[in-house]
Each structure stands twice: as structure tokens, then as C-alpha cells.
């Protein structure tokens, strides 16, 4: 963005050249995420943000962002230690410490919300996930532990509270009710909204239907259809 006359009285912003600004504004991508600064930047936070939003919207459990969670947790620890070492003996330092702490809070929130979104999903389908190889491999070691224990707590409760008092033949937890399995499975057919991250070209959304997917297109589509694109990072869920 063009730099304008800098010597302005504080509180006043010069009316910039509208046309030049409008030119900039035509392409929203340019404004949305312009990584144009020459400063150091770390993509991990952005990556975890995407993992979090994807996890929130995907109907089933996605692979755990192991490396990201580990790295960012460590960076948060280091940054917090660094802040402890700073002596807030003047207001300028107290101010920068406040800024750093604000970012730490943001990242901690992101990590917390990401982990809890997953716990919630794991609890909802604990029985299914703990007995499906693909999903077991999507969980972290801690999550696997959690899922197992949660499942036995939950099933134990249902047994003690009622199932054990029923005739033996009807005590099972995993039978079918007509077409509906009693072990709930995530519905992979349900609709999601996704944004295309890079040009994909023609993509088959059903056996008979293809659609051209270009960067920044937004689609409402069945989750199952775009699952491979999501795994590759070619689309993100909104």
C-alpha cells in the first residue's frame, strides 16, 4: 500500500488517493492475507488455526496435528519464561509484556479450543472411533487413552444403571435398531462449506458430476466428496 505524507498531526489521517486504494481493494485476497512484510513470520499459528476450523466443521475426527500442538505448546512455554525474566521496572517494559501476554493468551485459547473440540467429538463417537483402525491412528496417544477410558466409563455406567438389570439376551450395546446402528457413526454424507485454497481444475463431486474448482471458490458440498481434497490441504472448511 502506498505511503503518504507522513507529517500529519496525530489523530488525523490523510485522505489517501481513493483510486489507488480501490485498485488495491479489487482483489480481496490481497487484503485478506497479504504476507508482504519482510519481517520473520511463523506459519504454525496459521496452520493450527486452519486445523481448528477444519476440526470444528468436519463431521468426523481429523488426523491429530501432533507436531503443531507440540511445537506451539513449547513456544508458548519459552515465551512465558522469557517474559518472567523481563523485569517490569518501567512502564514501557510492562507495556510490551502485556502485548506478548496477549498473544500467548490467543495461542493458548487456540490450543485449548482445538483439543476440546476433538475431545467432544471423541466422546460423541467413542465406541466407533476406538474400534476403527483408521480413527485410532488419527488420535494422539493421549486421546487414545482418553477415548478408551471414556468408553469404559460410559458403557460401565449404562450397564450398572440399567442394562445389567435387563434379561441377558438384550444387554448388548452394539445391536441394530432397524437400519440405525446403536453405535452412532459420524455422518460423512452431511453438508460442509469449503473454500478452495489452490486451483484444482475439474473435480468429480459425484460419480456423474464434475465441477471446476478454482482458488477462492466457495462450495456447499457433501463432506465425503471433498475429503481427499481436505486431507491434501487443497480446500479448507469454513
Amino acid at each position, binding site marked *: *500500500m502506498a*505511503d503518504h505524507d*507522513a507529517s*500529519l498531526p*496525530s*489523530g488525523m*489521517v490523510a*485522505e489517501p488517493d*481513493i483510486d489507488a*486504494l*480501490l485498485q*488495491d*481493494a*479489487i*482483489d*480481496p485476497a490481497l*487484503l*485478506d*492475507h*497479504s504476507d*508482504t*512484510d519482510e*519481517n*520473520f*513470520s*511463523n506459519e*504454525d*499459528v496459521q496452520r493450527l*488455526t486452519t486445523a481448528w*476450523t477444519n476440526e*470444528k*466443521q468436519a463431521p468426523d475426527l481429523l488426523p491429530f496435528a501432533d507436531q503443531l500442538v507440540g511445537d*506451539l505448546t513449547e513456544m508458548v512455554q519459552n515465551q512465558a519464561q522469557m517474559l518472567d525474566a523481563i523485569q517490569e521496572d518501567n512502564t514501557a517494559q510492562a507495556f*510490551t509484556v*502485556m*502485548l*506478548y501476554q*496477549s*498473544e*500467548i493468551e*490467543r*495461542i493458548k*485459547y487456540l490450543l485449548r479450543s482445538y483439543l476440546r473440540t476433538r475431545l467432544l467429538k471423541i466422546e460423541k463417537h467413542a465406541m466407533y472411533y476406538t474400534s476403527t483402525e483408521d480413527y485410532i491412528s488419527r488420535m494422539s496417544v493421549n486421546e487414545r487413552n482418553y477415548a478408551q477410558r471414556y468408553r469404559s466409563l460410559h458403557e460401565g455406567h449404562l450397564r450398572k444403571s440399567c442394562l445389567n438389570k435387563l434379561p441377558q439376551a438384550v444387554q448388548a450395546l452394539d445391536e441394530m435398531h432397524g437400519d440405525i446402528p446403536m453405535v452412532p457413526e459420524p*455422518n460423512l*454424507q*452431511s*453438508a*460442509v*462449506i469449503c*473454500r478452495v485454497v489452490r486451483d484444482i481444475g475439474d473435480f468429480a463431486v459425484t460419480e456423474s458430476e464434475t*465441477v471446476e474448482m478454482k482458488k*477462492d*471458490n*466457495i*462450495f*456447499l*458440498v*457433501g463432506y465425503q*466428496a471433498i475429503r481427499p481434497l481436505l486431507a491434501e490441504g487443497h480446500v479448507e472448511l*469454513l
Partner: protein
Amino acid sequence: MTALPTFTLPELEFLAEDSLVTLIPTHRMDVLHFISGSYGPFQPPSRIEVPLWLARLLKKKRRGHIQPPAWLRCAYLERKYEEEQRQPDRFSALPSRYMEIANVLLECAEDDIPQSHTVKRMLQDLREIRQSKARAGLGAINPIYLQMDNLGVVELNEVRPVFCQAFNQTRRLEAGSNDAEATATGSTPGMYDESLKHNQVDYGY
């Protein structure tokens, strides 16, 4: 049935606060080394691009002014409104988080935004015309896909419950019988209006 996942407004604003905005610092400050990247040095009055959350904090502590993005100006918003009117079947291009960014800026830096009252009114007008277009789009729901280019994240989040439900329903009906499509389009719009009332996000500019 399970509730459809949506984002809360604070969550959407949190996400939008990662967007970069232009700050005009009024105090000198060394480079800040954040986990997500470093910003600075801050040398008044040179402009600098920083994430919105940082700009908001600096503005709050009177360490600088925020230069509103080019799209947050009356002339630009007016053009966009005209564009919306000219093209009844598509949405004009705006940053995908325009609504959240505008909201945060109007809340924390209203005095930096020229003609802020008019800007608020125009955002509201823009929002309404886009909203009614989005509603009309429900008629196009089919069990395969629906393209929704240029809708903002807040807007998508608002229509999500109804659109996704309609999508899932048409899909189920299609799987069940062949004449399902007629039934589906005949019954959904009414339901849509009803549920939209409850999903309305209050962004009173």
C-alpha cells in the same frame, strides 16, 4: 439428530483479528518478537502492517491510529452496493472477513474512520441486500453442490444451518425416491425463513 456446528461471533472475530491492518504509530517502539512473527520497529509516523489484534491493543493504549482498509470507505462501499444491485445472481467481491474486521474497527477505532456513521449505514445496507440474495439462493439447493463465491464468513455462517439442512434433506429424499426434488423445493423455503429468524446474527451498526 445432532446440532450443526457453527461458529460464534466472538470466534469469528477472533479469527478475523489475524488479518493485517495498517497502523500509524504515534510512539517509538522496538521490534516486537511474537510467536507468530515479528513486527516493527515502530517509527512514527511510518505506516506498518500489523495483525488486527495488535493494532486494536495499540489503539486502545493510544499508541497509534489505524488506517482503515480501502474497502471501509464510503465511496467504495457505495460502488459495492451498486454492484450488488446490478448483479442479482452473484455477490460482489469483498474481503471474506469484511464484516468482522469492520465491526472490530468501528468498535475500537471509530475516530480513525472518516464518516463512520455513513460507513455504518452503508455496511448495513450492503449486508441487507446480500442477505436477501443469499436467501433467494436456497431455491437452488440440490443434493450435489452449490457454489457460493464471495459470500463472507459471517454470511456463510448465518445461512449454514438452513442450507446444510436443506442439502441433507434433498439428499435423503433423492436417495429415497425419484420425484423427491419437487417435494423438497416446495417445502423448504418457508422453513428457511422461520429458522433464519433464530440464526440472525446481530450486527447492529
